[in-house]
């Protein structure tokens, strides 16, 4: 049983001030579907997902409940969106190269997007090139729909993902 956290001293980045979105004019079609863009995806992912670095080590009290944004695991420019085609690609950077949390982070990102985006969206999730020791293997697993579906039928894993997506201590 490992007694130390994987990344005991994560670098915390300042939370970015949210850009004010312009309100559409009254003359605009009130039934128009609002296009989804980069910032919106980033907002969906960063503000709400908290990362418990200690969860995998089976420690009860979370010590590092920082958001993915604060840990710079995802940044706004690492999100590619094409609303016309209904496509999103998220590139994330695990905090350490051997981070076994990479697949959990990827799964959290996928579940959050699944719950937030219209069903027509195609989503690709990958680790930033050069950021992980077994990058190709992690990417393959995160983008295998059948493997993701089976993983999400595992109650323990679903509980962990749900906890990351809406932490109970808030």
């Amino acid at each position, binding site marked *: 049983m490992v007694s130390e956290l994987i990344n005991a001293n994560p670098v915390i980045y300042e939370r970015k001030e949210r850009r004010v979105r312009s309100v559409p004019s009254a003359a605009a079609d009130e039934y128009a579907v609002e296009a989804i863009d980069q910032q919106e995806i980033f907002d969906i992912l960063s503000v709400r997902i908290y990362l418990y670095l200690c969860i995998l080590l089976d420690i009860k009290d979370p010590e590092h409940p920082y958001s993915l944004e604060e840990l710079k695991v995802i940044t706004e420019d690492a999100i590619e969106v094409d609303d016309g085609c209904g496509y999103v690609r998220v590139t994330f950077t695990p905090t350490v190269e051997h981070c076994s949390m990479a697949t959990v982070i990827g799964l959290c990102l996928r579940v959050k997007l699944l719950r937030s985006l219209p*069903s*027509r969206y*195609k989503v690709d999730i990958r680790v930033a090139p050069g950021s992980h020791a077994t990058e190709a293997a992690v990417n*393959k697993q995160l*983008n*295998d*729909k*059948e*493997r993701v*579906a*089976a993983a999400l*039928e595992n109650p323990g894993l679903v509980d962990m993902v749900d906890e990351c997506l809406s932490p109970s201590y808030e």
Partner: protein
Amino acid sequence: MELAKELREIQTLEGHTDRVWSLAWNPATGVAGIPLSFASCSGDKTVRIWEQNPSTSSWDCKAVLDETHTRTVRSCAWSPSGKLLATASFDATTAIWENVGGDYECVASLEGHENEVKSVCWNASGSMLTTCGRDKTVWVWEALPGNEFDCVSVLQGHTQDVKMVQWHPTRNLIFSCSYDNTVKIWADDGDDDDWACVQTLGEANNGHSSTVWALSFNASGDKMVTCSDDLTLKIWGSDDAKMSADGFAPWRHLCTLSGYHDRTIFSVHWSRDNIIASGAADDAIKFFVENNDQDGLVDGPSYKLLLRKENAHEMDINSVQWSPGEDRVLASASDDGTIKIWELTSE
């Protein structure tokens, strides 16, 4: 063969409450006045049986097979007689159902896989079954009287999750395809149920560069098509003239079809009249035929696109299957929870 010009949408079947992973036509239907019927399986843990109404031609759900599998039902396969249905599930079991006067009863449960079972297939005579799963193994089962099933062999060799298994239509060979990017061919050594891998089709043989999701044989069994996460379809052939002493004719790559789908191709099915249908995560269904326009300078057959149907479903297509019977009827299953029935027509 008359050229197909249009893919006509016949009906959209709703009912499943989660994605539909797979479907299988009952081979004993669509002939001798017996209405066409098929089974579909889903993430909602159930299997549905659908049948065409002979007077109205519309499709109805005749049965829901539930309260048996405790997780996603990933794939299903009818025995050649159409009397038994095998269903493979993420709950690590394969259930065998018998049709008793319109009601389906679970008569056996095949256990042994360590985790999710992904595919099941019967041999041509119905005397044996094969299953495969995430535990990287392929299991071979014997069907005994009284709905008893015995495992006769566990085939190890794949280094990753095995996605699909298919019994060859005429030869005693099992083909499996995997997350390890290969297709493996397994043969039985005499009557000993001593199965071994006799060939691996990998990148070195012009094989796929990512997960191979499905494979399908042509009617005569001398060609097969595979589809992959690498976005290509590959055609393979076996030349009996090259058969070795132990009776196995090796398979070789004939043709690669690329640039037709831009996301993972999950399913492929070769029809009896030589039309290959593919279904992918780009929501499209495409059809391919052998290219007879070639000028004879190319070594071996080549294939061309016959027809395409973009946005066939609103989400990923997981399975495409040609029906038995005379007409060019195709069924497709999707993440959108629906099944669509199509007809490929000449006009």
